């Protein structure tokens, strides 16, 4: 690992230079903040909080063509995935989420689409100096300056950015803009440590997940699920905008003699998600669906991969239109134990 310093007067040149490498960065469009492509020479602002749509949408697109087919042609055509991509300003929680999701896509089958895109993507992170209201990453093993999943971690030091180059992919990027960087002095690293500590102290919510994975199976029939799911609308906001949710549905779309097989995000909060061909639905109401969402993140994923599938970004709590708050649910789980 090496640490570099980038003065802010060189920021626009830095992003301008990277924009030739298929650079994506957060931008506000109306009410939504999401990663958008940065046109060549365009500058980027990393002000403000995290994106509404997590960067998972770039590596695991909401709709993705698996292959195209047409009558008379024997071999289906999978689309080529060969474009490198650089994401600038990824928050540590979202980068950690990608590391978690990757476990699933490498599990019993190596998903070529996800893994290829992941491999071609360089993640330049931005440490959170000012956590948002619903952030709780330390409770689930993260931190506002976590480096997991990232290739470079940037920290805003006021006058300059500190760049910690973490991987070979990160080195390649740093190498391309070497003339803009200088060696980071020891004070810069100290200042970063201090900012990280302050950020940690600024996080308002916390819940100790200790015991939750074990408690959940025992609370299967607990009245708490009825209670917390009663206001649920059954929409897909909490899952679609969750950085660790990865469910998808595969469908053929055919018109005339040609078509494509594509996969789109799916959500366990939808009634249709579990419905059988017979019409039977093993998760017949929002109670079971809400229970599944929490169980999946805090119990099933733990059983399978040894980690909680939640990075504490707080999106589900912030974006829920009826104020179903994950922290509140987890506290109720702990209380019911």
């Amino acid at each position, binding site marked *: 690992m090496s640490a570099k310093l980038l003065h802010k007067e060189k920021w626009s040149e830095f992003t301008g230079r990277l924009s030739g490498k298929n650079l994506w960065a957060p931008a506000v469009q109306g009410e939504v903040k999401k990663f958008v492509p940065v046109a060549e020479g365009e500058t980027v602002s990393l002000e403000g909080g995290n994106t509404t749509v997590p960067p998972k949408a770039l590596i695991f697109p909401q*709709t993705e*063509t698996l292959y*195209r087919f047409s009558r008379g042609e024997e071999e289906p055509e999978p689309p080529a995935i060969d474009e490198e991509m650089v994401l600038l300003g990824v928050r540590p929680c979202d980068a950690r989420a990608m590391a978690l999701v990757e476990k699933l896509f490498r599990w019993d089958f190596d998903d070529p689409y996800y893994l290829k895109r992941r491999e071609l993507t360089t993640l330049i992170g931005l440490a959170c100096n000012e956590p948002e209201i619903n952030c709780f990453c330390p409770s689930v093993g993260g931190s506002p300056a976590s480096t997991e999943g990232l290739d470079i971690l940037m920290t805003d030091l006021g006058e300059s950015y500190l760049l910690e180059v973490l991987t070979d992919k990160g080195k390649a990027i740093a190498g391309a803009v070497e003339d803009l960087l200088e060696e980071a002095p020891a004070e810069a690293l100290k200042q970063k440590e201090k900012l990280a500590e302050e950020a940690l102290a600024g996080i308002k919510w916390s819940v100790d997940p200790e015991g939750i994975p074990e408690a959940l199976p025992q609370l299967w029939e607990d009245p708490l699920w009825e209670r917390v799911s009663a206001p649920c609308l059954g929409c897909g906001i909490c899952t679609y905008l969750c950085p660790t949710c990865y469910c998808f549905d595969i469908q053929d*779309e055919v*018109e005339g003699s040609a078509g*494509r097989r594509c996969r789109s995000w799916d959500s366990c909060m939808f009634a249709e998600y579990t419905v059988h061909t017979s019409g039977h639905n093993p998760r017949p109401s929002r109670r079971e669906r809400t229970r599944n969402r929490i169980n999946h993140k805090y119990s099933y994923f733990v059983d399978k991969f040894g980690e909680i599938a939640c990075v504490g970004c707080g999106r589900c709590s912030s974006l829920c239109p009826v104020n179903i708050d994950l922290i509140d649910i987890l506290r109720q789980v702990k209380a019911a134990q």
Partner: protein
Amino acid sequence: MSEQFRPNIVAFLCNWCTYAGADLAGTSRVQYPANVKIIRVMCSGRVNPLYVVNALQQGADGVIISGCHPGDCHYMEGNFYARRRLKLLKELLEFTGVDPRRFTMSWVSASEGHKWKEVVEKAVEDVRAAGPFDQFQRRQIGW
């Protein structure tokens, strides 16, 4: 451009009046543009507005819906419902920026072969003036 552009129009015709009217136009050897692809439905009231949306998605440049004159419906009142419903659809499409010339609705009875010819001619002319409609096509966008 307008010389090469052949509008692709989908027509939903009621079985009892306009379909028979179009048939009469055929047997009477009335010449009319061949841009129309007819889909026979039992009543104009059976036309789900989503048929129109779906036709546009699948590549139609314009849509015609035609049924019996008010009062002549084989099912007494189907076309009255159609009239309300499709007026709203027309307003909605216009509001979202679909050229109103792409949407034609008419009453053509079984004996009005000539009126059918006029309706088609007008629709083709209108859609030709509006130009091809590929901004909304599935294949152009998603595939």
